[in-house]
């Protein structure tokens, strides 16, 4: 431990946390000093100092958007860093390309499987390093060798089978096996257990422990805190792009990790106006469908209902069902007090439910078409006079929404792709206002938008509420969903586990409670 300045002294002093466990005396294999990453105006990673000891299992925890994925992508050379230095065994390294990272022995197993589904397990394992003789592939030899390797790893997987015939969990194990093959000395697991069964998790953990015995350094990223305690030697907490602290797992507990993950500055009060509630718009009673059970909520005019939960908790599945994508299998939906049967999206649209999807580009907008066409898409029937669309009615309808929702665009005939993310979001909202929607479902409205645009979106909420609409807000970002919602429902494993009436000022203790409910400690 000769590189004194590399110690995370600032972080220690800031948090009064002296348990970052550098006492083992093991040499750092990888040292980060002031690692920094900006994406335009977004500061994703703020001067992170971190040491990884050779042969340790180092867990990294943090909320969505805390900077975990950015950190991984910097370490694996997917993105170049904006600032700071990285030392590999004491030598400065660039890590500018994935090739360089792999050359050093840094590998990652991603949450999404990045393998070729149409090739066999063996072909995937040997991809890029095929066994050949006289320029011909040695299929048999590769399958035999792959099978032996899988058996040695303790994975019961058929090496000759097509990857696509395996479950997602089994494919994840193949990805892990592949990552261990190529002289890996530093292996990053990003949420590897999200799709695994209990038995597969056990197999994976056995592999990780064996890798550790062989001297491989592991970074383990997971939302499941219990896994951190089962597996890791040390744990680092990231929050808003900053390193909060690094601790020995033996010296900490789940509750203090959660406190570290959410303890944030108070300057992030979100925009919210007090609006008096009107009559009920929508009510569900014990609604059950694919991925969720017995969910009962109510939305009134002027009200924001927040839905919070980890990915896979069932909140997205719930709203998809409200919007008719996956019909319900049980329970009831009431619209304006009357039972409603929503079987298809068009039923939901006809009632006046609008979905503002998470992915504007994939689901919300026709990007290479004009703003006016996007705004008027649901109402062209109304704009048609006899056979032909009235150009005056079309322009007037578009201009009204551009004015009302304050879309910043050169003209109504500009292409939607020429607008900024926030203004694209407004087109989707304007489209549904045009149609006369009463209930707006916002699915992660602020992902990938900067702070200024966020404020705009929050103002838009207020305008919608005043105009007599209700809002269902889904967000993985707790402070946002908490501050904007009048009532916040917490989902865990397909069920609504808690509900809170929110105030307008962040209360740290309540954040802790909600996060604890969502994680299910």
């Amino acid at each position, binding site marked *: 431990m000769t590189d004194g300045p590399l110690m995370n002294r600032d972080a220690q002093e800031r948090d009064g946390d002296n348990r970052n466990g550098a006492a083992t005396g093991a040499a750092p294999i990888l040292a980060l000093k002031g690692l920094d990453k900006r994406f335009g105006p977004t500061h994703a990673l703020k001067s992170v100092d971190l040491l990884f000891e050779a042969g340790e299992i180092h867990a990294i925890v943090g909320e969505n958007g805390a900077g975990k994925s950015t950190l991984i992508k910097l370490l694996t050379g997917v993105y170049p860093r904006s600032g700071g230095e990285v030392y590999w065994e004491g030598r400065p390294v660039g890590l500018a390309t994935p090739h360089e990272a792999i050359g050093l022995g840094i590998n990652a197993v991603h949450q999404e499987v990045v393998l070729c589904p149409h090739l066999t397990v063996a072909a995937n394992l040997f991809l890029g390093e095929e066994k050949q003789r006289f320029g011909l592939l040695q299929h048999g030899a590769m399958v035999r060798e792959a099978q032996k390797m899988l058996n040695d790893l303790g994975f019961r997987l058929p090496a000759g089978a097509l990857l696509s015939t395996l479950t997602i969990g089994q494919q994840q194990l193949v990805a892990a096996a592949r990552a261990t093959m190529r002289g890996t000395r530093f292996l990053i697991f990003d949420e590897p257990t999200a799709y695994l069964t209990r038995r597969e998790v056990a197999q994976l953990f056995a592999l990780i422990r064996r890798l550790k015995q062989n001297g491989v350094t592991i970074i383990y990223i997971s939302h499941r805190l219990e896994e951190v305690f089962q597996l890791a030697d040390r744990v680092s907490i990231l929050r808003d792009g900053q390193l909060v602290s690094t601790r020995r797992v033996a010296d900490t507990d789940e509750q203090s990790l959660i406190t570290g993950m959410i303890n944030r500055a108070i300057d992030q009060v979100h925009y919210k106006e007090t609006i008096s509630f009107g009559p009920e718009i929508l009510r569900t009673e014990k609604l059950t469908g694919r991925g969720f059970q017995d969910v009962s909520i109510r939305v009134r005019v002027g009200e924001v209902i927040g839905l919070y939960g980890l990915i896979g908790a069932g909140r997205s599945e719930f709203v998809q069902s409200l919007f008719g994508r996956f019909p319900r299998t049980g329970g009831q939906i009431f619209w304006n007090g009357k039972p409603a049967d929503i079987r298809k*999206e*068009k039923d939901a*649209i*006809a009632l006046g439910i609008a*979905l503002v*999807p998470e992915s504007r580009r*994939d*689901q*919300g*907008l*026709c*990007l*290479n*078409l004009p703003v006016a*066409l996007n705004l*008027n*898409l*649901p109402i*062209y*029937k109304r*704009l*048609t006079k006899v*056979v*032909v*669309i009235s*150009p005056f009615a079309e322009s007037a309808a578009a201009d009204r929404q551009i004015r009302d929702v304050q879309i*910043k*665009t*050169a*003209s109504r*005939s*500009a292409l939607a792709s*020429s607008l*900024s993310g926030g203004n694209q979001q407004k087109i989707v909202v304007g*489209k549904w206002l045009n*149609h006369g929607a009463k209930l707006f479902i916002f699915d992660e409205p602020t992902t990938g938008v900067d702070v*200024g645009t966020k404020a705009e979106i929050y103002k838009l909420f207020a305008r919608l509420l005043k105009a007599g609409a209700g809002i269902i807000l889904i967000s993985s970002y707790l402070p946002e969903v908490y501050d904007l919602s009048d009532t916040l429902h917490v989902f865990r494993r397909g069920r609504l586990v808690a509900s809170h009436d929110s105030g307008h000022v962040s209360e740290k203790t309540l954040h802790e409670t909600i996060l604890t409910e969502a994680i299910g400690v």
Partner: protein
Amino acid sequence: MSVEASEALELAATKRRARLTALFNLTLLILLALLWVVLAFSTKTFFTWTNIANLLRQGSMIAILAIGETFVIITAGIDLSVGAIVGFTSVIVAWLLTHGFPIFPAVLITLVVGFGIGIFHAFGITSLGLPPFIMTLATMTALRGIGLLITNGATISVTNAAFTDFSIGYFLYPILPNLFLMVLLVGIPSYVFLHHTRFGRYLFAVGSNMEAARLSGVNTRGMIYIAYTLSAVTAAFVGVLLASRIGIGIATQADGWELQAIASSVIGGTSLFGAIGSAYGPVLGSFILTTINNGANLLNVNSFWQRVITGFLIIVIVYFDGLRRKRI
């Protein structure tokens, strides 16, 4: 830079782009005019009534085919069968006429056959989940086979003089041949449909983002049906015109016309990725191609070389078209 300043710059840039787009929409027309002027000066025979009328006749059938094809391409699909439909329906209409059907019912039945083919395409694409390329490739092969089976490989000669006279006749002598009138007959309603009705808007929306269109309440399956039936019906109509022009029906006719139609559409500014295109672009595109061939004939260019030149020009025109799209 402050947010306001950068937004102001962005707005100015968008306005500039809008003006440029309006200007560039004229480039095809200018290109066509330029070709005509050059040919008028370099050959004695180009700018004669006979040749102009001939050129308008030559380009008409591909122009109509290209308009129909464009509906499909705007939805980000492709219809490879239109050439085969032309050959097949020329057999149908010739068979009907030689079996004593009067002209009007014979034409109507032929168009209904085209409609049925379009419905079959859309069914295969929406219900069986086949890619448009495969679905229409399959009918392209099969229709020629069925057409040959009907006649047992022989040609059917049309003896109805009124039918065959139509295609050599003029609506307005000597400048407006009947065949070119048919381009207007198909083109003008197509223009209104594509650019001024809600279904036209929906075709663009489906081609741009099927999911967004569906979530906006557009019946996307219905729009696929509309696009492929329009394409097939216009192809059947061209089949009737071809039978009239050559006086026979045989399924091997119109070989490769689907590619000429696609090329015309693309030269006319249609994007094969969907959502970009117009009803007038394909007409201009087909007459640019026809003019090039016509001019090459008059200049005594070897017909083998003509094919090479046409292929090369398609690359050049579409490359520059893509370039201007990127730039603006």
